[in-house]
């Protein structure tokens, strides 16, 4: 009896914290804090994966999301250090409209979930969710195997990597207006003489 009870309590606690973290992601004004909230939300999702008997997926989730994606986002936020990127102020109208649309979506999907008759299922059988069967499925060329999508995803990742490098490169192709080589005033000349600075803010006077 103790097992299901612990499972239930943990589900509701983790679910509540995930929703709180998700709300923090969309409502925090400082983007870095939003990114940290996203990290927390993704970590609790890894907890969900463990509850759903997908331990390998939980590991991948933490490895890729926390170790990779969130770190990348934090890097990007740090690289573009300016007041604008740190603060994000949605206007009240946007808030109202956004909330209305998302709540409508929530009601719609919840209703759909509640009224749909799902196939009979049994939770007694533990799914073979270990790394071995996932690896076998990913490299299985037969029916029900995923070798073609796997290769496509590999290609996608390679393309993304090359694309990322190409876009972030400084080299200006000839006569390209949108890549300047870092010599435009807006890119480099962020230095303000001491005399023109607001001593309280430390940055340029706005």
């Amino acid at each position: 009896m103790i097992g299901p009870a612990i499972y239930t309590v943990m589900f509701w606690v983790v679910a509540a914290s995930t929703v709180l973290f998700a709300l923090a992601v969309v409502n925090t004004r400082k983007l870095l804090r939003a990114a940290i909230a996203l990290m927390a939300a993704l970590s609790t999702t890894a907890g969900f994966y463990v509850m759903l008997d997908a331990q390998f997926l939980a590991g991948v989730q933490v490895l890729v999301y926390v170790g990779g994606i969130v770190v990348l986002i934090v890097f990007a936020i740090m690289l573009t250090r300016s007041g604008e990127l740190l603060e994000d102020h949605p206007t009240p109208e946007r808030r109202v409209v956004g909330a209305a649309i998302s709540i409508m979506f929530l009601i719609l999907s919840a209703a759909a979930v509640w009224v749909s008759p799902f196939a009979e299922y049994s939770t007694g059988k533990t799914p073979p969710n270990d790394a071995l069967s996932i690896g076998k499925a990913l490299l299985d060329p037969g029916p029900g195997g995923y070798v073609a999508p796997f290769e496509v995803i590999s290609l996608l990742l390679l393309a993304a990597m090359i694309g990322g490098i190409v876009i972030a490169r400084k080299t200006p192709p000839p006569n390209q207006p949108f890549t300047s080589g870092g010599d435009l005033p807006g890119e480099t000349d962020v230095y303000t003489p001491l005399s023109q600075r607001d001593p309280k803010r430390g940055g340029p006077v706005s």
Partner: protein
Amino acid sequence: MNQLLASIAAYAPGLREWLLLTSVIFSIGLYGLLTRRNAVGILLAVELMLNSAALNFVIFNRFCMPARIDGSVMAIFVIAVAAAEVVVGMAIFVALYRYRGTVDVNRMDTMKDPVTSFEGPVAFNKEVLDNINKQYKSHHDH
């Protein structure tokens, strides 16, 4: 004691509770997508939505066909796509920020017109603006 445990276990999440949870997370992501103006903020919200979608795959896998692992495989694909998306997205945002000094999606309207206004960490003067427009023109002349 056992009675208490049993009453707690009665609230054990079923398929519908799990799906409701992912719907809530997805809706929160949607809200962020709609309200954020900052491109990075939008990306964060999109990550949240992708994450809830991946969770859905695993939930259906777990409850509807527990003998298979297709849901987990799909979730891995979703994670891989999210990684690719973030790499390219962040590269674009950093490049854009470098050039335009902003990542506000509302101001990313250069495709409409030649540059007429420019706001960034440093106020651009007329000369710089003209220079950019000249570059823009010469690009089109070629």
